[in-house]
């Protein structure tokens, strides 16, 4: 799946992010695996 594609799923995910922002991100909750930082960066 490409994050850049003009899809309904990408649009809905962006709209749903609001819930994650208020309920997880602002509260300092863990949002991803510890190696996410280098995901897609190291070849």
């Amino acid at each position: 799946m490409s994050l850049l594609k003009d899809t309904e799923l990408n649009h809905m995910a962006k709209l749903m992010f609001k819930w994650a922002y208020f309920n997880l991100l602002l509260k300092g909750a863990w949002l991803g695996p510890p190696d996410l930082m280098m995901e897609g960066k190291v070849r």
Partner: protein
Amino acid sequence: MKKLVILGGGTGGTMMANKLRKDLDDDWSITIIDKDNIHYYQPGYLFVPFDINKPREIRRSKREFINPGIEFVISDITNVDWDKQEISTATEGKFNYDILVMATGCDIRPDEVEGLEEGWGHDIYGYYRFNDCQELGKALKRFKGGRMVVNIAEMPIKCPVAPLEFAFLADWYFHERGIRDDVEIEFVTPLSGAFTKPVATKVLTDACEDKNIKIVPNFALGSVDHKAKVIQAFDGSEVEYDMLVSIPPNFGAQVMIDSGIADPMGYIPVDKHTLQPEGRDNVWVLGDGTDVPTSKAGAVAHFQGDVLHENILAYVSGGEQHARSDGHAV
């Protein structure tokens, strides 16, 4: 009692306070200082003009998201003194700190472009502030056709892809209204293409072509003539508009300039990996207010927050600080 002070109660500051409160002992106080108690969900600014988000959905109380055990002080910050380890406020006195986290963000500055502020609201609109995105929504409803120009004045800006998203949403919106054939959409940018990175630029350029959105690259905005409805570049080129959706220059907090700790655009110079100013081992900066060459976005602040969390806890315990920011957003 040892004191950790956080400047700014937006995305970065609130997140850091809540993360650190969980892990710091009770002999540490945590205080957030911010100018007001309103938390805006900034990604929603993009959707309000199209009625996808309602204004009430993106405005909440800051205090609502600050966990127990964290003091929240509402006042303008008037000075930051790293030597004295002291923060001055307009109405709440001075605060000393043992650790300082700075997350004061950035904001648009239409006054930095000749003619832009004078024309604001006269066929010139924006979406980077709560009131602006609502006014833009009203203007879109009134718009019957003509040339809409989406213009980035200069980089860096908050959420660099947002202007393109706006153009795409405008394409959808005018289709829905049945007037897309009466509207030209032009994306006028100082970049050499649709976006900053080649892979994304290729995909997004194709998307613009599919949607009949014209890209005008390498346009370094010099001035705006709102009476003639034209934007002018420093090289003399011009683009006419019927409605201008402007992304003005973004600046960091003025108080950082006034305190002598920021560059002329208000961004605080830090090591791009440790996010610390040179020679200040008890000060960290995250989010839009730094000078690091990354996207100015909540996602970046989130990942920077992980780095700060680990390194601040290491600093408190006297251990090695291993975490390094690589500036990514996803």
